[in-house]
């Protein structure tokens, strides 16, 4: 099913209480609570960056429905290939929040997804993770596993060669992969109209003989339904899907960016009116499964979880200097052992030896 721009807008203006839904009321509540957690995490991360306690950070506020809706359609065994803005989907898939904070604090410990959390490290270069998702899906097919791979991307990534090569490859080999594209309207400052001349991103899939689906990315339920269908199709050996979730980031591309230079506040405000959290909350209220007390509790609990993760990050000793060399190879070659010795003699060992941060 392909939705044109008008359809999305029309759907966006509905209350979010319509449309099919395979989730139980309990699951919907849990999905909403996760979206609250992701939003609170994101806001705290931006504040931490502003106060110098985190490095450059890529905010996702506005995209929670797309990310959490997607994550809820996946199974633990599925492999995710994220970009730098997938904190929401990564947290729901099992990445500890402390790890996400450490990554944005520039620490190598932030790259470690625990065993059992099937999440590849963040790919910074645009669209480069998509061929990896294709390869992982290929491996799953070869091994007869029913896990799928999900390659995440944004609208700008559809201009990169790797995107097209990955889509084509997946189509030819009919692999169990889903390309999950969050079209948030901007690649840093460049609007979609300067990114592509095609009316939608979903229609690009047709050129590769794979199904393209466009969904309202601020409707968590709709995203969940679309992603569930795509995942089931992949699991059944029926090939890849490209899913375009139309959404918006309220904040800058990263905290190093000033988004007022390239878009006006009115546009941001208009999108806030279509907010994914508001809409799911309306749905919960209409179902009679949500209350003001639960709302307060959700935010209070989110604050507790985020605060704990921040304290865990703050409690870390300075980074161990050997980590500069660790994992550059399975076994450190002699010249690197020499360089490590020199580093230790010049700068010490770091870590706990260097003392704790004040």
């Amino acid at each position: 099913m392909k939705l044109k721009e008008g359809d999305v807008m029309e759907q966006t203006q509905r209350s979010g209480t319509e449309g099919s839904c395979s989730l139980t009321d309990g699951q919907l509540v849990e999905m909403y609570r996760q979206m609250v957690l992701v939003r609170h995490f994101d806001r705290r991360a931006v504040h931490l960056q502003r106060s110098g306690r985190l490095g450059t950070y890529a905010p996702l506020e506005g995209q929670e429905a797309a990310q959490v809706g997607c994550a809820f359609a996946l199974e633990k065994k599925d492999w995710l290939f994220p970009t730098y803005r997938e904190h929401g989907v990564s947290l729901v898939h099992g990445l500890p929040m402390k790890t996400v904070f450490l990554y944005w604090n520039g620490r190598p410990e932030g790259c470690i997804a625990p065993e059992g959390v099937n999440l590849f490290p963040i790919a910074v270069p645009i669209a480069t993770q998509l061929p990896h998702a294709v390869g992982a899906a290929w491996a799953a097919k070869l091994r007869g596993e029913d896990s799928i791979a999900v390659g995440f991307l944004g609208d700008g990534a559809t201009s990169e060669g790797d995107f097209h090569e990955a889509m084509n490859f997946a189509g030819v080999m009919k692999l169990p992969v889903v390309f999950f594209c969050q079209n948030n309207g901007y690649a840093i400052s460049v609007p979609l109209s300067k990114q592509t001349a095609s009316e939608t991103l979903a229609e690009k899939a047709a050129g590769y003989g794979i199904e393209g689906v466009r969904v309202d990315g601020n409707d968590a339920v709709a995203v969940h339904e679309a992603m569930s269908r795509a995942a089931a199709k992949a699991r059944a050996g029926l090939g890849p899907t490209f899913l375009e979730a139309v959404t918006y980031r309220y904040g800058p591309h990263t905290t190093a960016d000033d988004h007022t230079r390239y878009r006006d506040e009115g546009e941001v405000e208009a999108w806030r009116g279509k907010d994914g959290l508001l809409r799911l909350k309306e749905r919960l209220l209409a179902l009679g499964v949500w209350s003001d007390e639960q709302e307060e509790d959700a935010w209070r609990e989110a604050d507790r979880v985020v605060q704990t993760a921040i304290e865990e990050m703050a409690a870390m000793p300075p980074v161990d200097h050997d980590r500069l060399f660790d994992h550059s190879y399975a076994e450190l070659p002699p010249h690197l052992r020499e360089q490590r010795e020199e580093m230790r003699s010049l700068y010490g060992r770091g870590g706990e030896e260097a003392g704790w941060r004040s």
Partner: protein
Amino acid sequence: MAKLNLIQAITDGLRTALRDDPRVLVFGEDVGVNGGVFRATDGLQEEFGAVRVVDTPLAESAIIGAAVGLAVSGMRPVPEMQFAGFIYPAMEQIVSHAARVRMRSQGRFSCPMVIRAPYGGGIRAPELHGDSPEAFFVHQPGIKVVCPSNPYDAKGLLLAAIEDPDPVLFLEPMRIYRAFRDEVPAERYTVEIGKSRTVRAGKDLSLFAWGTMLRVSLEAAAQAAERGWDVEVIDLRTLNPLDREGIAASVRRTGRALIVHEAPKTAGLGAEILSLINEEALLYLEAPVGRVCGYDVPQPLFALEDLHAPDAKRIMHGIEKVMNF
């Protein structure tokens, strides 16, 4: 004369080129409305219009590939790679095409273009925003590589690169974009490609550096002076073609040499300079030539980046080794 920082000098150079030569086009990701992620192209689209200062799709290979087509067709493209660490998708277009068009067409076509790319660590940016990939490109025949270390050279080298009949990779040391200001003439001037500059004269050791490493090298030279060692600091400015005569002449004078770069050591540009010294000045050497470089590991996340790049302490350690041989 205006006092400009390095990035303002680059903007001034681009403005001068756009004003003086209608063939010049500036394009890349976020260079137009946004004025570049570092503001290198700030105000240029307002001044010269969206036809000459162009926001492109997010496609490094197509940006450089299109620049090849533009250059061959008589334009003077000045594409921007947002960070040098994002240049890798364009390797094919640079290595297989931009660098070979002249030879492949036996001189019928040429590829005069300038690829601007901020490089090096030190600004606490995410992964792949801090790479120093100059050696990959120095290794490729057919393309020149330049790298200024101060505002004056930045404008003069940029204008020389845009005038150059061959493709030039113009590496910008982002960590010192706004570190200090220099007198920069408002008018057009060029700094000759292929010529190094002696920043500090000395008689005991020749220290070769460029871009991001110049300032820390000067700090180390000042520390060495306290130990009674008179270090000559030479800014190479052009990495290909190297100023062979300038390098050799200095080493013949001092008898000792140290090369400093931020990129990893193995097969880094230091190795080439060391070979050059062997070829041109071996019998003048009183000690093995030293190298102080980034360690041979992938550019780390920023919590470790200060440990990775040479600082004055590590350079001083390198000076000691050469002096005490």
